[in-house]
């Protein structure tokens, strides 16, 4: 009797869950999904009002993802595409979602604007296109001005800094990253320091940069987010070492990052492996370099820009280790997957 009740009950619940469909915010710290209606947003948090009980407040730095009730399937797919580095499709989907959203709240409207500007910015960075970089920086600034009190604000400021850094506008990037540092969370303050360090690297102030990275790493508490940032700081330090041709030293740090750093932080891991490949390549250890790049190709291909860079390098290193077929495969993949990337263009040169 129990089995029958159980099965019928499950049908009823499925039906009811559709009717109750609401906004869902997934919390990064514990992976918990909090459903209800997003009733308020600010730079610092999102409030989810539930059917029963006190509303949930989720800090903006603890948001893993948001599913908007009125966002529809296109929006969900757009998020996936963006995360998978398919920026072009993501932009198309975000645009469609914007057009088809049914009675979107102000928060969702702003979310869509942020998403569009952010994705375009990421695309511009991966392509290294100066015109696009300028344009997307302006778009980001426009949406920040329009919706400054939104939970995507600090993230967008970080992306803006990246765009400005890629465009070589160090002063503007510095301003943007300093704003990131004003966020009330330690991991964002660490992020700000790391990013400021990266500007110093670009300015070739390597000693100062190293200090920034060290300071950022030292500020880490035991929280998982801080720990992830600590490895980011180490990674940035390793990059500076690679820039100074201190390959052996950089490898020691990179091995630590890849072995002990959070394995599911794909951006962190992908960058570490690309850098490792670069260092090994410079040392003439081509087979090891190939395998380092291969990590990005098969484990972290969703990191579009780094993936393209890894593929580009694989075209070179596989040849060096007398595997020309593999080199050709990597080339084909680069051409097909990232036809507009700067790495693809570099290949053609």
């Amino acid at each position, binding site marked *: *009797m129990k089995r029958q009740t159980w099965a*019928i009950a499950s049908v009823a619940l499925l039906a009811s869950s559709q009717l109750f469909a609401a906004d869902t915010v997934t919390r990064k710290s514990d992976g918990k999904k909090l459903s209800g209606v997003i009733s308020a947003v600010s730079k610092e948090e999102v409030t989810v009002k539930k059917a029963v009980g006190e509303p949930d407040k989720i800090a903006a730095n603890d948001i*893993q993802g948001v599913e908007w009730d009125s966002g529809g399937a296109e929006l969900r797919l757009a998020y*996936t595409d963006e995360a998978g580095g398919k920026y072009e499709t993501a932009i198309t989907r975000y645009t469609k979602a914007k057009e088809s959203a049914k009675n979107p709240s102000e928060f969702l409207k702003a979310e869509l604007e942020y998403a569009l500007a952010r994705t375009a910015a990421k695309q511009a960075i991966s392509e290294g296109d100066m015109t696009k970089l300028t344009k997307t920086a302006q778009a980001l600034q426009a949406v920040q001005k329009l919706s400054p009190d939104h939970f995507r604000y600090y993230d967008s400021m970080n992306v803006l800094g990246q765009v400005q850094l890629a465009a070589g506008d160090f002063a503007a990037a510095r301003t943007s990253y300093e704003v990131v540092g004003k966020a009330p969370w330690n991991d964002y303050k660490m992020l700000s320091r790391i990013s400021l360090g990266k500007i110093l690297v670009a300015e070739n102030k390597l000693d100062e940069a190293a200090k920034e990275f060290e300071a950022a790493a030292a500020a880490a508490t035991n929280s998982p987010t801080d720990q992830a940032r600590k490895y980011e700081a180490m990674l940035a330090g390793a990059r500076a070492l690679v820039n100074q041709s201190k390959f052996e030293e950089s490898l020691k740090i990179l091995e630590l990052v890849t072995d002990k750093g959070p394995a599911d932080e794909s951006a962190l891991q992908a960058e570490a492996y690309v850098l490792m490949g670069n260092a090994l390549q410079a040392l003439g250890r081509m087979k090891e370099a190939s395998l380092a790049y291969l990590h990005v190709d098969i484990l972290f291909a969703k990191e579009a820009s780094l993936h393209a860079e890894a593929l580009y390098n694989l075209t070179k290193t596989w040849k060096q280790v007398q595997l020309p077929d593999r080199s050709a495969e990597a080339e084909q993949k680069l051409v097909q997957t990232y036809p507009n990337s700067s790495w693809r263009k570099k290949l053609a040169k």
Partner: protein
Amino acid sequence: MRSRLLAAVAMAVLFAGAGMAQAVEPYLEFVRGLREQQYFDYAILYLDQIASKENTPPEIKQVIPYEKAMALQDSAKVARSPEKQLEQLDQALAFLEQFVKENPNHPIAADANSDRAGIILEKAKAEIQQLRSPSGPKKQLQASSRELIAKARQVYQTAFDQHEANFKKFPAFIDQQKDPDQFAARSKTEQSLMTASLNLAICTFEEAHSYEPTAAEYKQLLTKAADEFEKMHQKYRTQVGGLNARAWQGKCFEEMNEINKALGIYKEILDHPAETGVLSQLKTQTLYFKLICLNSKEKRDYRVVADLAEEWMKKHPNEQLTRMGLSIQYEQALAYEQMGNNPEILQMDKEAFWKKARTVAMNIQKFNSEHKDAALALTQRIQVKIGGNKEEKVNDFETAFSFARQAFLDAVETKKELEDSTKKGAVVPPEIISKLNANLANSYSDAVKYFELAFTLVKTAEDKKNLPQARYLYAHVNLSLKKYYEAAVLADFVARTTEKDNTLALDAAYLAMAAFGQAFNESKASNDQKGEDLKMIIRASNLIAERWPSSDKANDAYMMLGQMIAVQKKPAESAMWYGKVPESDPKFAQAQLAAGQAYWSAYIGAGRMIAAERPNPEQLAAWQKSAQDHLRVGIKKLTDTAPKEASPPDLIGGKMTLAQIIINQGQDAEALKLLEGDPHSVVKAVTVADEPSRPEAGMTSRRFAMETYKLIFRAYIGTQNLDKARETMKTLEKIAGHGGAEGGAEITELYISLGRLLKDELERLKSNGETERFEKLMTSFETFLNDMASRKDGQTFGSLSWIGETYFALGESVVATDAAKANGFYEKGGNAFNEIMTRATNDQNFVGAKQLSEVKLRLVKVGRLRKDFPPAETLMKEIVKENANNLKVQISAAEMYQDWGLSGQADAPKKLIVAIQGDTKVNGNIWGWSQIAKKLHKSPNFATDEYYKQTFLDAQYNSAFCRLRFAREQSAKDKQKHLEGCRTELVTTSAIVKDMPEEQYQRFNGLYRDVLTDLGQTASDLPRAVDVAVAPPVMEKKPVEEAPKTETKEGTEVKPDKPAEPPKIDMMTWIIFGACLVAGLGAIVWVLVKGKSKPKQKSFGGTTAAGPVSFSGIEAGAPLPAPTFVAPTAKPNPRPAAAPGAGATAGAATKPATRPATKPAAPAAPGAAAVPKPKPKPPSPPASK
């Protein structure tokens, strides 16, 4: 729905308010009403509310924890996430425990205990479910699931006791008419008692699942469970409970593959006439069990399954969405799919069945049940079969991973089918095989697509949790597709980044090691790159050794490390790793033997080092001792465990090596005991009934048998047992004489090799500082030889050849220190060969024509060694005239002129030019080093045949060396010209042989630096192939010539004579593997005993220094290469000519400056080298779904 919710809330408020107004409130009825309506949250909210009210009756308050547990338990059943389910069940369990603790004698305490036990058992089942996943920490899960089952059993027992006690409180007879309530209460208690009893047996049934189906415990526990169910059935056979037990008994039989027995039981139940109530439910469950049986591979009654399921659905329209209903539909969907898979029906019919299967599966996947995932996968399989667009529906990791996993499992299954179909004796039509191949390719292609998609869809914490498993499975896919680097990278990442306690991490590490091994095996890259692959294997093996030092797989890793590090020429370190394999491991004996082998290789190798690099005598003695110790342990272990009549190859090989070591120490008698004694006699192992039938490889091969008897022969000489030695010599000749068309040559080679063996042994003793042993051995041999030589009767071609060769060996061993003594030996050697010539003149049958040429060549050698060149030249010309195209003859001629040129005799330098350029004026045309090299280079075999390359290198080296020495004798102007020519020659050689082994390169480089110095330039290194811009090489200047022709035995002209098939192995492999195996007979026998390409015998298989690693419990994704043992056969290597003053006998390593050309890795004796290839096999891909 919102309005329903509001209504419920309003109701709750109303009830709460009413509670204040009314004295009696139907508290529990309301709670149960909320539960039935699935308002579990509100039910709990309400229970909390009444718990805090003062006026709630105490008997109600008493059961609140129990009621909360019931609400949570019901809620868990419909929870969508497993975490939520688990959380709610844990809470329910806590409330139940609270309830039974506070109210142990409450009337429903027994029910509470039953529920408690039920939850605990469910948790155990969840863990057992995880056991089927490759990512689960298996041992841990097995242990904890058994612990939970034990706990559940204990609680069920308590419940059973309580129910039994309650039941006993009722009178034996209750009149249902008079006291219906008491009758019903007793029935209910009895039912609870039966349920508890049934559940106790189910605990046993579930415990069986905590073991692998192949484990003995699995069957034992199922048998036990079947007995328990049977007892219950006997006790309650007239009641539904008894029948239920019977059905479960059938399930036990089904799981033990006793399908017919199970079906018989199911029939009994299904034939029961009653169709209502509980019995109807039981029949439904039984039908489900029956359908599983009918869908099994043993029955394949798919049509019956489909019909029975259809019939049931018609009869039970309201039960289709129950757990059993969905289960029955799932079996129906599987049956439809299989019906569509029938290759004998039309495509349209196939599609019709598949569509039916899809419809049913899509219906199942809409609802929560244990079949949801499987139904989803089934839908996708069908989509692939009938064509459809599934990508659009895959937007999340879970789905993509589910498809990927399914495709992978399909591939595993298809591969197995394919293997079964292609097994010897299987009669499967080719079109089926080709279809299976196509299916396999499709499944892999799908797997790749969905794994890659899944990786881009990782979002939630749950996704991340499953990511290592996905990566691990994807590594398996890559391995199957021979993408070894991808497989290794994936597996290595999982191994490094997953918790060490998770079995998946260790499995992944093992897979990474195997994948790198495969990459190494199949790599066609250059030396350097293969060296890189080697490093990867070592790194992957190290990871296992460091992270899981006490695991079974670590032992495999130790074996692999031992093998690979031996390849890196670190035998002592290699032995250290072998030594780590514990005695408890089945590979212990093999590891000990390999360790002994590694130490012996180190000892042997030291003898070839230059003095400055050679370890001190204490170290050498320690290595020799360690070699013995390990070999003795390994031999003892194998002797104790192997059947007395068996001849385990590892044991035989170990005995051979140990015999060599102790012969080296003068313990000849013990060596003979080891070789000839029982059990596991080496002599018996190599004996065949029919000599000509010896196989090409293995212990009974001709080569191995000869090596065995050479050792025995050597040991008899050591014991001064002349008769036995001669007897052994005859046996040796008999074995060698059956070497087919080359039999005669084999005998000649046999004696040459015996002489060389002695020379090697003497040189090793000398260079290792074992003077006493050296002197003793010299004396022993001299006495023996003198005795042999003095005998006039009974001499054969073989015995005289041996005497001659052995005198040469003795002479070469002392020439550096006592030229007069050496000369005496050479003379005695020459006498032996002259005796052959004399006897051949008198007796035409004494020796064959080809052997006679060999004897003449040996006489030329006597002239060379004694520096008596003119008569040697005369004889040489005679030989050349008869054998103009014989490479070996031409090499001997060049060597003779080279030795003459360097002899310091009058006009000697001119002979250097003859050595280089040959002499076309004399009859038969002497080629000289230059022509020899040119003809070899032009040969079509040059690119592929290592022998050609090595001989070419020697010829080139000798040519340049002669030129340098000639230049030094010339005027300044001519000297310059010749030195320039010499330099060009060396650079050209470096350009031609792109993968010149390092040791060869060093030899050429030394000469090159000397030339530059003589030219008055700063010495610099010889440009390597990649740096050499000069092209084309000198030999390319002339029009293409035909490959040199030489005479075969039959007199036809073919390519250059090559006495035996050279090793088919690239130069890189020589370099890598050569070092640990060169020269030592121990190494030779080690190789030979393992056979050339035969797989190892399972019971004694393992790794040795020269053997492949074997991994246990394995199924490789792709066909794995057979172990590669390449044992070069005996061949006349171009021997370098002696430098003046140094004599031809100084060891190459000890006198590098005066000895112009040696071949460090020359296959100087039969079977002089072997190549261990790692034979990594990955852990079997997880097969369970």
